[in-house]
């Protein structure tokens, strides 16, 4: 029960210092009492401590024998024993115990902002790959018609579905609802959602992307980033995307019944911004390699560090520099804590 009390104090501290939480740290039950100076010494012993204190568990490990807890995700009952079924961090909320796997596929919740790829067109719906255990469904009635017209979808619309999205298109969408049979519907009924074009796509482990109010960022370096909660990430040039959406809007107003073909001069991206995009991409890849949370702050931290170190965008993922940057990140963070104190 002692660790339970510990938990509560931790939660309090997290609430009162949102600044600290926004840093790269997500791991909740962490050393709030530990001072920054002796951080390294603690780490030595923590290796085994994480497991002996049952903050990390492996599949098949018994969490509790008495049946005093309720089973949450990642656990199951075997007789009176509560047993973990995945390898990951243990979460205790009151009497409910759940285990969050370190890596796993995306599991959708209503309102999540995601990036997906169209895999199939069937009657009145698209199937979208979102790195989940099933493809999600995008209904014809759940998209914005060009020009934002509000009307019933007719059979003519159904025949023209390929004008909106074809296979392998990337879409930016939101989870609409979870149906009774477990399948999930998404929608793009908002100006900002829709097809993604002329940019860079990458995939990370979904557990590294934190739920927050915002998942679309225009970074200060002139790069747009969409961090889909499903681990799919879209990176593009801000300026180019702005021109492109202006062109599409104009096109839709004038002749909305024709497919929109974007001319080459709008597709154009300068060498400079290509370089910035690849630097952002590699910064994210580096964060994933270090298993650190990915959000606009952490991306920019790595971005600036790599600039400061005068690394080319392609050198960022050299094993030696990865290590160097990761240590720099942790020292920077520890300095911040000292400053606050």
């Amino acid at each position, binding site marked *: 029960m002692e660790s339970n009390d510990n938990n509560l104090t931790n939660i309090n501290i997290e609430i009162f210092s949102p600044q600290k939480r926004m840093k790269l740290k*997500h791991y909740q039950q962490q050393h709030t009492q530990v001072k920054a100076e002796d951080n390294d010494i603690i780490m030595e012993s923590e290796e085994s401590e994480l497991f002996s204190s049952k903050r990390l568990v492996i599949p*098949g*490990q018994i969490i509790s024998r008495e049946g005093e807890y309720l089973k949450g995700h990642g656990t199951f009952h075997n007789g009176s024993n509560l*047993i973990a079924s995945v390898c990951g961090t243990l979460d205790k909320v009151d009497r409910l115990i759940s285990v969050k796997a370190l*890596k796993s596929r995306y599991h959708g919740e209503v309102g999540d902002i995601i990036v997906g790829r169209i895999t199939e067109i069937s009657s009145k719906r698209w199937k979208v790959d979102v790195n989940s*255990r099933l493809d999600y469904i995008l209904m014809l009635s759940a998209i914005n018609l060009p020009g934002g017209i509000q009307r019933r979808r007719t059979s003519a619309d159904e025949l023209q579905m390929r004008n909106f999205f074809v296979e392998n298109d990337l879409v930016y969408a939101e989870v609409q609802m979870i149906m009774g049979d477990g399948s999930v519907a998404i929608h793009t009924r908002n100006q900002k959602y829709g097809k993604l074009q002329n940019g860079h796509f990458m995939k990370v482990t979904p557990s590294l992307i934190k739920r927050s109010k915002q998942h679309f960022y225009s970074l200060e370096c002139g790069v747009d980033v969409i961090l889909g909660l499903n681990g799919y990430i879209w990176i593009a040039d801000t300026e180019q995307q702005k021109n492109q959406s202006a062109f599409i809007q104009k096109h839709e107003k004038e002749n909305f019944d024709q497919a929109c073909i974007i001319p080459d001069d709008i597709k154009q991206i300068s060498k400079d911004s290509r370089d910035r995009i690849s630097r952002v991409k590699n910064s994210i890849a580096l964060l994933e390699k270090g298993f650190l949370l990915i959000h606009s702050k952490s991306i920019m931290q790595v971005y600036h560090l790599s600039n400061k170190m005068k690394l080319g965008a392609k050198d960022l993922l050299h094993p030696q520099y990865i290590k160097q940057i990761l240590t720099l990140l942790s020292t920077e*963070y520890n300095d911040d804590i000292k400053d606050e104190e």
Partner: protein
Amino acid sequence: MSKLSYISPEGLRIDGRRANELRRINIQMGVSNRADGSAYYEQGNTKIIAAVYGPREISVSGQSIFDRAIVKCEFATSSFSTTERKPQQKTKGDRATTEISNLVKQAFESTIQTHLYPRSQINIYIQVLQSDGGLKAAAINASTLALIDAGISMKDFVCAVSTSCIDGVAVLDLNHIEERSGGPDCLLSIQPQIGGVISLNMDSKVPQDLFESVLELGEKGCKKIFSILSDQVKKYSTDLISNQLKI
């Protein structure tokens, strides 16, 4: 010497081990970044890579089961993995290969909590890089690690080891030469923590009076392998999360 002696008078086997000793095990997890989970597994000279994809959308429509996931397994040996170089076509789909993939598939169908992933499929791909006996056991152990890396819910680890009896002595973890001795090749796979035997396969008969000692040795071997695997899993996950802890 007309007959190869598998155990010397001093009680040492051909490669210098004693009858109850395992070969050195070397593990690396998360080796492939395209797969959902992957592991490299080395036991003596046997080297294997396992990759897990899924749970994901069913690839062949009509195969889906409404209340659980299907598990598929593909086992392949590289043409350069054995002493004789086989053409690629022959290594795929022959009897031995299909047998091992079915074995792995069955072992994990009962261990993965498939009811949590209805209408989806989980693929396990196993590639043998170097083969020196104990392929079945190594394939199962490597798949366990890859599935854990993929974050798929399982009741327990599955740990497997091959045992046999040669010249009336129970022997653990056979290498290639010992496998060809003509003795019974007995594969035991268990769930070490919640308890229970997943499979016990015998290629030929084990004498009744020796069976118990063979089984006991196998169980001990599985437990030992479990402690090695779990140590590695713990180390791997601590390593993964250590950066988050530092920051």
